[in-house]
């Protein structure tokens, strides 16, 4: 009996090992992630933005979200509170006081930053997020199961969820107008409508060059930092500002990519399935030795 079990044991163990190795090869299938050198981006110059909120309007029209007439966006009382993008508005503009002139408040447009190393993409259980060649980070409705882990992972707290919907609630976030515009070489809706071109669309590298040039020429106008150049491994959207970004409600982030640590742990545990298989073998070995010991003891007792 013991012999038979042992043979069985070895046979099945071998089977399981080969099966898991077979699975490993498949598990490399990952969500679409392209980090092109020519990826595009947007440079937001908060010193130029006038807070007209036309971008909010254009974004809603572009994404078929309900919106009031464009004239109603002149109402500046919305700036009394700090707003965040949500399922009904993928981008919002907030206002902050300017220390030197109350006639030129600082307006900051908020939307998805389109990270170079997106935490949402790394976190998503079904790989519903993609990073496209032009830098856009998009979300795929056909895959999403609504677990909201992307919202937990996002260092900028951007993805929004339709909590009110019982069926097919969506994750809503800025998609860089990927489908209708940027994938076809057109400008995102917000960039196109901006009257003062406070948001400039271009190759990310060129944007950084332009931003550096601006800082060099107007050292009094800007603080010497481009937000998004290095934050969480770099983002496609970049910001210039006249005062510290933390005072404009930007999160304080390091240079390490947001998914870095967790991916390192994850890949450490699952390095080609070696640790789990090794653990399996170890436990099997222990079990086998213990079993032998026990049966010997019993035989001796007899």
């Amino acid at each position: 009996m013991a012999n038979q079990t042992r043979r069985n044991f070895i046979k099945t163990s071998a089977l399981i090992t080969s099966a898991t190795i077979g699975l490993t090869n498949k598990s490399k299938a990952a969500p679409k992630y392209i980090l092109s050198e020519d990826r595009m981006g947007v440079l937001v110059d908060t010193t130029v933005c006038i807070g007209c909120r036309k971008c909010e309007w254009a974004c809603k029209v572009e994404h078929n979200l309900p919106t009031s007439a464009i004239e109603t966006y002149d109402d500046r009382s919305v700036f009394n509170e700090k707003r965040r993008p949500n399922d009904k508005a993928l981008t919002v503009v907030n206002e902050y006081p300017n220390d030197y002139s109350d006639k030129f408040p600082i307006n900051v447009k908020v939307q998805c930053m389109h990270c170079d190393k997106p935490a949402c993409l790394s976190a998503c259980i079904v790989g519903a997020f993609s990073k496209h060649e032009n830098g856009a980070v998009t979300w795929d409705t056909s895959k999403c199961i609504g677990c909201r882990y992307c919202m937990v992972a996002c260092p900028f707290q951007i993805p929004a969820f339709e909590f009110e919907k019982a069926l097919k609630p969506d994750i809503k976030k800025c998609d860089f107008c990927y489908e209708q515009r940027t994938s076809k070489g057109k400008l995102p809706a917000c960039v196109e409508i901006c009257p003062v071109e406070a948001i400039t669309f271009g190759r990310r590298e060129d944007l950084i060059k332009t931003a550096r040039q601006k800082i060099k020429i107007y050292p009094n106008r800007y603080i010497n930092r481009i937000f998004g150049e290095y934050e969480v491994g770099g983002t496609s959207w970049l910001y210039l500002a006249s005062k510290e970004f933390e005072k404009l409600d930007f999160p304080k982030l390091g240079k390490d990519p947001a998914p870095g640590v967790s991916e390192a742990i994850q890949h450490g545990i699952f390095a080609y399935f070696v640790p789990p298989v090794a653990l399996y073998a170890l436990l099997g070995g222990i079990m086998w030795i213990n079993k032998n010991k026990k049966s010997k003891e019993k035989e001796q007792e007899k």
Partner: protein
Amino acid sequence: MENLKPTILQKKFFTPAVIGLTVLAINGIIFLMIRFLWGIGAVTNLNNQYPWGIWIGIDVAAGVALAAGGFTTAALGHIMHKDQYHAIIRPALLTAMLGYTFVALSVMIDLGRYYYIWHPLIMWNGSSVLFEVGMCVMIYVTVLYIEFLPIVTERFIGRVNLPSFLSKFNKPLDKFLRTLDRGLEKTMFIFIIAGVVLSCLHQSSLGTLMVIAGPKMHPLWQTPVLPLLFLLSAISVGFPMVIMESYLTSKSFGLKPETNILSDLSNIVAPLLGIYLAFKIGDMVIRQTFVYLTEVNTESIMFTLEILIGVIIPLRMFLSNEIKKSPTGMAIASFLVVLGVLLNRINNFLVAYNPPYSSKAYFPSFGEISVTIGFIALEILLFRFFVLNFPIVSLPVYSTPQAKFTIRGGSK
């Protein structure tokens, strides 16, 4: 030596406590219906800042941890071959099975698109921690069901009695059960080892889940060794959970507590808790996060409570011989460990999570609490049902020296 044999308990199902639990369960189910009809927002206090609430923090994260008794006892009883613990394996297995079932259910109700819960099976994302947890839990639930199957076959072999017109299937079904039983007997060890491996994987990965939240998580908890801490705490909460459950079962059904087995188990708890505490403190010292304990705020208070009530006090209790002699003492100590791990999971998933733009902190709504309590009530009711209908709890048997069926993989 008295022999213990898993037996179907012969008791009444309904008691006043059971009726109370039923009311709680129904209350939960009502709120669940609202959730399914009008969306998650209608029942919960969740918002874009706090995407996860107690359904993930308690029902899933703490649920998984508290169901760890299943794999720790399996490892002890089957892999380490400590035969004296066989009496507690079945209740622990049932707890784990029910626990994981409700974890899966909780995930389901928390998912915005619950009907797509099968998506991870075919849409893979290797870098996602949640994907790994999801897959492991899915496989482990299956493994738990398979591990439970022998109890079902034992219950029905020779006793298949279908109602009138189906009675012609009685024989083939009986035959099928016997084949199944034989097959399971030979392969059970695969599932037992797999169960332990899978548990180790997802118990730790549950900790990795929150690592990606980065600076959004309070530094007292945010650490790269979070998966190790989760695994260690899960391992150390496994036996206390079994002790508490065994104690409560015996109290509830008026049985004699299995004091010997329980105090043997208690001997293992102290070192496990000690290791966990050492890692927890060591991590705190290395990352120098103890400075955050000097401030008085929710985080520091919760962290202190978690360590003090959940680890240090029960550790001291489990080191005391007097406590180990008294079932009640052990149960209290175990309860504290369970409470500690529950607090730890709540802290990790809810208290430590400070989204950058929240205007007010998250606190669960009445509906959320109702559903969570309802699920716990249902779980207890189901446990009672299984114990009353299947051979789970071991009772002393004097007539037959050897039980006919034990868990497969055990010595024969």
